């Protein structure tokens, strides 16, 4: 299989094509067992986590806010967020992003969809948007589920912030939701990385496993005294940028930095994946 330089696509492809492809991709995703299973896990895992905590006296003290899990329900979504940023969110997003292109190779359906008057750019855009929609939806689901699990199973007690100030329930709710929102940029960066691997490898195992392995490797790199400049450029660093929200005064520098770094990874991966798909000769699949 070879690839040749692709000329610019004419502007005559069917209008609204990306939107049509996006709707089709969402329709396919909601019927996939793995997506249904991921949604169930996102929904139930925080409740199981809190239930497990409630039957033991120990607390995950080595995790930020871990020592408060029995004292404030608002600590629960933050502990879950700390765990999730290490590998769970890259894994969760790559379940779809790493497979959404390579599944067409696996099923042999590229020839089926690329001969229906939709351009490769439209197909790419629709699929990429669907993968991002899934990633955002799952992140929101696990955020709301962990907040609900904490509030329902532990309670709405005030939470002690990282500077020792007491945060009232209303303020806590806003901060927790904001903290979860700050991981969306790195989640989307890992989604884009999954898309790139899915297009480039044409192999779902590589597409799904790759972001998880890379995420763990980057976490490891940030733990072994990597230079600060290198740490700043890692997309995984952005998963911890929310810590500044819980100090007094709060600081947003890492958040802005995380958004920029995530955006760079996102753009590079998406542009690369798009170029690869456009140049590809579909001789199989």
């Amino acid at each position, binding site marked *: 299989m070879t690839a040749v330089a692709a000329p610019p696509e004419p502007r005559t492809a069917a209008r609204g094509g990306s939107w049509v492809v996006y709707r089709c991709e969402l329709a396919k995703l909601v019927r996939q067992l793995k997506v249904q299973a991921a949604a169930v896990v996102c929904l139930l895992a925080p409740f199981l986590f809190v239930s497990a905590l409630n039957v033991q006296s120990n607390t995950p003290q080595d995790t930020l806010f871990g020592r408060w899990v029995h004292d404030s329900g608002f600590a629960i979504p933050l502990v879950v967020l700390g765990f999730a940023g290490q590998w769970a969110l890259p894994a969760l997003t790559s379940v779809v992003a790493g497979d959404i292109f390579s599944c067409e190779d696996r099923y042999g359906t590229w020839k089926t969809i690329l*001969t229906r008057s939709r351009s490769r750019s*439209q197909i790419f855009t629709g699929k990429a948007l669907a993968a991002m929609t899934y990633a955002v939806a799952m992140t929101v689901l696990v955020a709301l589920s962990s907040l609900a699990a904490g509030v329902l199973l532990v309670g709405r007690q005030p939470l002690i912030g990282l500077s020792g100030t007491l945060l009232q329930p209303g303020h806590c709710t806003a901060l927790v939701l904001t903290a979860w929102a700050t991981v969306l940029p790195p989640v989307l960066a890992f989604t884009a990385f999954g898309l790139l691997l899915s297009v480039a490898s044409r192999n779902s195992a590589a597409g799904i496993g790759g972001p998880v392995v890379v995420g763990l490797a980057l976490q490891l790199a940030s733990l072994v005294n990597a230079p600060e400049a290198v740490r700043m450029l890692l997309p995984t660093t952005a998963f911890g940028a929310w810590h500044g929200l819980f100090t007094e005064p709060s600081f947003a520098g890492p958040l802005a930095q995380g958004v920029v770094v995530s955006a760079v990874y996102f753009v590079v991966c998406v542009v690369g994946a798009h170029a690869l798909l456009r140049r590809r*000769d579909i001789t199989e699949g």
Partner: protein
Amino acid sequence: MDQSFSPAIEALGLTKRFEETVAVAGVGLVVGPGRVHGMLGPNGAGKTTLLTMLMGLVRPDAGTIRILGRTRDEFGACMLDGVAGFVESPRFYPYLSGRRNLALLAELDGGAAASRIDEALDLVDLREQAGAKVGGYSVGMRQRLGIAAALLRDPRLLILDEPASGLDPAGMRDMRALVARLAHDGTTVLLSSHDMAEVEELCDNVTIMRRGGVVFDGSMGTLRQRAPDPAFRLATSDDERALEVARDAPGIAAAVAGDELLVHAQRDNLDGYVIALGRADVAVRRLDLESSPLEALFFALTEDEPEESAEPAASVPQEATR
């Protein structure tokens, strides 16, 4: 350009290399509107690569393609508006039902495609199984679903690669009848096949490929004219006497082939030869068709000749080599 009179397919000088292998070398193909055009060739001849280029799946290294008067440079993916079909076996999402697969494709097609799903399922006799997941379909059912998916687009040009593959005899008969009906209604059909009988039955014109090039391109009538006499295997009670009779019989070329005789003759001449054998007290114990004229021609066109052939094939037509 008045598209009603322009070719449905006009490909000129198409070349495609895969690393060091030249899959298609400077091939041209012109298919007139409303025609059924066959493509024949052994494995590796370049048929599939040519079809994938026509359908925009593979970019040619050189050459131009105009489909229904449109080029990809001018129209992008819309070049395939009015075009349907499949290359190699049709493939679908196995976790979705046949009907759901068609609904997704209809949504991609847009327009009125969704309203044709039931009609398309009826045409390929799949309506009752349409609710089952495609993962459980047989090869023949997937083939029929592929044809249904093509019909959703209400095509003016239908490109089919081995459409009868995997079908049972009744399915093959129905598929051929469907292609004939679509052609009768004005749909242009490009039919790639290994089955000479299928091409002979359905096609007006045929292109025969070998090693990435075209070795014949013309009408079925021209192909028939250039075809050699059919070959028959003949078992008799006295082969030596039968050979003597053959020497005096008009239009008969007979030779010993193992325990039998191999006879090349038109059917009328063969009838006379069999009668002459009876008059010469030679019993005919068996008479089988060894190869049809078109099959014999196809083999002559597409198979490698022996390096030191005593008698080179004299009747190999090369009406068009592009």
